[in-house]
C-alpha cells in the first residue's frame, strides 16, 4: 500500500447547509416513521392485501440493496479476481453497502406488520422453515449488514488509534489487529451472502407464479437479479466516486473508473443477452413485447435504459469521458431500478381489483432514509479514513467546502 493509496479522513466542516438539509429530510422521515408505528400501516401507507409489498420493499430493500452492492461487487473484483488496483474503491463501496443494507433492514422493520417479533427470526432457529426463500433473504440481509460494518470497522479503529481520548486509543490499538486477522473470514462471508440473497430476491417473485406477468416470469429470474445487482454495484461506485471527487474537490480516479466501467458493461451485456434470449426462447413472449400495453412498454423502456450504457461505453475513448461515464452509470442504475420495480410492482398483478401507488408518507419516509444515508456517507468520509488518493488542491477545496456544492464553478 503506497502513500497515495493510504485512506485519510476528508476533514472539513460537517454541518454544511446541504448536510443540514439532508438531515432535515431524515428528521421528517423519523417523525413519520414514529407516526407509522403509532397509527399503523393502514393509516400511513397505501399498502393493501393485494400489494402487501410496496415502495419500501421495492425500493429500500430490493433496489436499495442492489445499489448497495458496490462493496460486494468491488470485493469480488479485488479479492476473488485478484485485481488489486481497485483496492482503493473497497472502503467507500463498503460504506455504501453498510449504509444501504442498514437502511434496508430498517425499512423491513418499518414494513412488517409485527415488528416487535423481528428479533425472534435469527434466534428461534428451531422454528425455521428451511425451504423459505424469505427466511434466507431475511437472514442474509441481517448477517450481511453486520458483516459489512465489521469489514468497515478497521476504518473506525484506525481513526480511534489517533483519538485524543486515551480509552478509545487503547481499545482501538487492542482490537484492530484482531479484526485485521479475522478480516479474510468476514470478506469471504461478505462475498457469499449477497450472492445468496440477491438471487433470492428474484426467487421471491418467481414464487408468485401466474400472478407475475409473462414478460418477467422466467426461471432465470434469480440469475438476472444477481447479474444486474453486480452491474448496479459498479454503477453505484462510479457515481459515488465521481460525485465525491466533484463535491469534495478531489482528483477523479478516471482511469480506474474507466476500467471498472468496462467490467460493468461486460456484465450488463451478459445480463441483456440472457434477458433477450430468454424472451425469444419462450417465444410466446415475442407477441407480448409488441402488444404495447403497460407491460410491453415497461419492458422496452427497461431494455433501452440498460442497452444505453453498453453503447455509451463501447469505445475506450468514450470510457475516458467522465460525463459519459456518469451518464452511463446513471442509465444503468435507472434501468436496474426499473427492472426491480417492474418485477415487484408492475409485473406482479394480484388481481384486477387491486391497485397500489405509494402514499405521501411512504415516499417521504423513503426520501428521508435516502437523505439520511447520503448525510451519513458525507459525515463518515469526513471523519474516518475511507477515501484515499491525492489530497485535493487548496483552491478547489475552498471552492467546494466554503461556498456552494451544486455550483462549484
Amino acid at each position, binding site marked *: 500500500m503506497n502513500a497515495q493509496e493510504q485512506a485519510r479522513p476528508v476533514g472539513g466542516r460537517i454541518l454544511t447547509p446541504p448536510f443540514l438539509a439532508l438531515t432535515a429530510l431524515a428528521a421528517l422521515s423519523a417523525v413519520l416513521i414514529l407516526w407509522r408505528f403509532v397509527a399503523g400501516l393502514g393509516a400511513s401507507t397505501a399498502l393493501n392485501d393485494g400489494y402487501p409489498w410496496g415502495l419500501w420493499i421495492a425500493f429500500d430493500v430490493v433496489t436499495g440493496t442492489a445499489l448497495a452492492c458496490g462493496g460486494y461487487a468491488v470485493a469480488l473484483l479485488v479479492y476473488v479476481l485478484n485485481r488489486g488496483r481497485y483496492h482503493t474503491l473497497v472502503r467507500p463501496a463498503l460504506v455504501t453497502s453498510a449504509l444501504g443494507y442498514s437502511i434496508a433492514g430498517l425499512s423491513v422493520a418499518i414494513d412488517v406488520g409485527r415488528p416487535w417479533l423481528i428479533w425472534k427470526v435469527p434466534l428461534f432457529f428451531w422454528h425455521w422453515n428451511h425451504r423459505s426463500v424469505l427466511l434466507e433473504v431475511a437472514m442474509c440481509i441481517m448477517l450481511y449488514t453486520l458483516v459489512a460494518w465489521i469489514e468497515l470497522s478497521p476504518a473506525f479503529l484506525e481513526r480511534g488509534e489517533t483519538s485524543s481520548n486515551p480509552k478509545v486509543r487503547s481499545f482501538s490499538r487492542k482490537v484492530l489487529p484482531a479484526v485485521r486477522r479475522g478480516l479474510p473470514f468476514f470478506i469471504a462471508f461478505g462475498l457469499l451472502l449477497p450472492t445468496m440473497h440477491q438471487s433470492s430476491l428474484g426467487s421471491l417473485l418467481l414464487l408468485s407464479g401466474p400472478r407475475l406477468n409473462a414478460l418477467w416470469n422466467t426461471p432465470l429470474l434469480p440469475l438476472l437479479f444477481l447479474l444486474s445487482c453486480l452491474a448496479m454495484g459498479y454503477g453505484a461506485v462510479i457515481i459515488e466516486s465521481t460525485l465525491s471527487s466533484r463535491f469534495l474537490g478531489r482528483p477523479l*480516479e*478516471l482511469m*480506474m473508473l474507466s476500467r471498472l466501467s468496462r467490467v460493468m458493461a461486460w456484465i450488463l451485456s451478459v445480463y441483456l443477452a440472457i434477458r433477450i434470449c430468454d424472451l425469444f426462447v419462450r417465444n410466446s413472449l415475442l407477441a407480448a413485447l409488441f402488444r404495447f400495453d403497460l407491460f410491453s412498454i415497461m419492458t422496452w423502456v427497461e431494455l433501452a435504459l440498460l442497452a444505453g450504457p453498453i453503447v455509451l461505453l463501447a469505445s475506450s475513448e468514450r470510457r475516458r469521458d*467522465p*460525463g459519459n461515464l*456518469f*451518464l452511463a452509470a446513471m442509465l444503468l442504475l435507472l434501468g436496474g431500478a426499473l427492472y426491480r420495480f417492474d418485477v415487484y410492482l408492475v409485473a406482479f398483478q394480484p388481481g384486477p381489483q387491486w391497485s397500489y401507488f405509494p402514499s405521501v408518507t411512504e415516499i417521504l419516509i423513503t426520501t428521508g432514509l435516502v437523505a439520511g444515508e447520503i448525510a451519513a456517507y458525507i459525515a463518515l468520509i469526513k471523519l474516518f479514513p475511507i477515501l484515499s488518493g491525492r489530497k485535493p488542491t487548496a483552491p478547489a477545496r475552498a471552492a467546494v467546502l466554503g461556498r456552494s456544492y451544486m455550483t462549484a464553478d
Partner: protein
Amino acid sequence: MAHSDSRTIENHLRMSGVSRRDFVRLCSALMVTAPAGLALTSTNSVDELAKAVGHTPRPSVIWLHFQECTGCTETLLRTSAPDVGHLILDVISLDYHETLMAAAGDQAEQALHAAMQKNSGRYVLVAEGSIPLKDNGGYLELGRRRGLEVLKEAASGAAAIVAIGSCASWGGVQSSGENPTGAVGVDSIIKDKPIINLPGCPPNPYTLLAVVLEYATMGRIPALDSLKRPLFAYSRVIHDNCPRRAHFDAGRFAQAFGDDGHRQGWCLFKLGCKGPLTHGACATRHFNEVPDVWPIGIGAPCVGCTEKAVAFTMPVFQTVDLHSIPATAPDTYAPIYTPQGHISSAATGLAGLIGGALVGAGIMASRRLRTPEGGEKPGEE
C-alpha cells in the same frame, strides 16, 4: 271415431306425410309447455295425449291482423327444425291468415267470409294487434272497412277469441304514452265471447297451440287469471324460474353490459330486468326450440312484455322495486371487483417531483462533467 274421417288431426297428418314420431314429439312439447292447468295434458302419458288429440277434428282457426308488427306470426313461422311451424299448421286448420295466404284483394275478402260462414259458431278467432278507437277508428282499415267493424263481424261467429301478443291483449306498444290512435285490446271491445289473452312480445307459439287444442279436444278454454291469461302459461313468475336466479341469491350482479359479470352470465336485475314483476313461461320454454333463446338467456334483461303495467311503460333499464317475492333485492350491489387500494394525487405529484429532480440533476451533472472548468480538471493518471 272412424279412421276414414279426414277431418281428424291424426288422419290429416297421415295424409300430409307427417310421421307419427314427429306428431308424438309435438305432443311431448305440448306437455312440457303446459305441465299443469290444462285438462288436455292431465293425461298419464304422451301416448294418451296423442290419442286424444289425434281423434279430434282439426280446429278451424281464423287469424286477423290489426295494428301490429306481425312478430307473433313470425315467431310461429320461425320455429326451427324439425319445422314445428308446419306441424302446427297441419294440426290446426288455419282457414284464414293474411300473412300466409296467396290470395289478395277481393279474393282474400271472399276467403274470409267463406271461412266464417263454413265454420260459423265453431272457429277460434285469433286476433293479432291492437284496435284503434280514436277518431272513430279511422287509423286502421281492412278492405275499406274500419278494423273495429272487421273485428266485431269476425267475433260474432267465433266460439272463442284468442288475443295473441301484447297489442291484442291490451293495446301493447301502440297504447303506451300518449296512445295517439286510442289503441285497445280485444277484450275492451268484445264482451260477449270467451276471450283468452296471450300477451308477450311475442308469446310462445306453443301456448297458442295448447289453448286451441284444449278448446278443440276438451271443448273448453283453459283456466284464466284476472287479466284473462291462461294460468298454465302465465301463473309462474319469470324470476322464480330464472336460470340465473342462483346469481341473484348469491348477490352476483352484472353491473354494466359487457362487464365481466355480464360475460359470466350473472343476474341482470341491476340492468333493469323485469323478471320479478313478470308472469310467463319464457324461463322454462325457450323460443325456436333452441335452449337459451329468450331475452335473459342471451344476456338481455326481461322487459316484462306480458305485463300491461310494465311493458312499454317502465323504462327498459330501470331497476324494479321488489315487494311481493320472498327474495330481498339488494340496496347496494357488490361490485364485480371491489377496488382495493387508493392512489393519492399528492403522492403521484410528489413522486413525479422527486423523479424529475433526480433525472434533471443526473443530466446536469453528466453535462457539467463533460466540460470540466477551472480548477475542477479531473486528475489524469
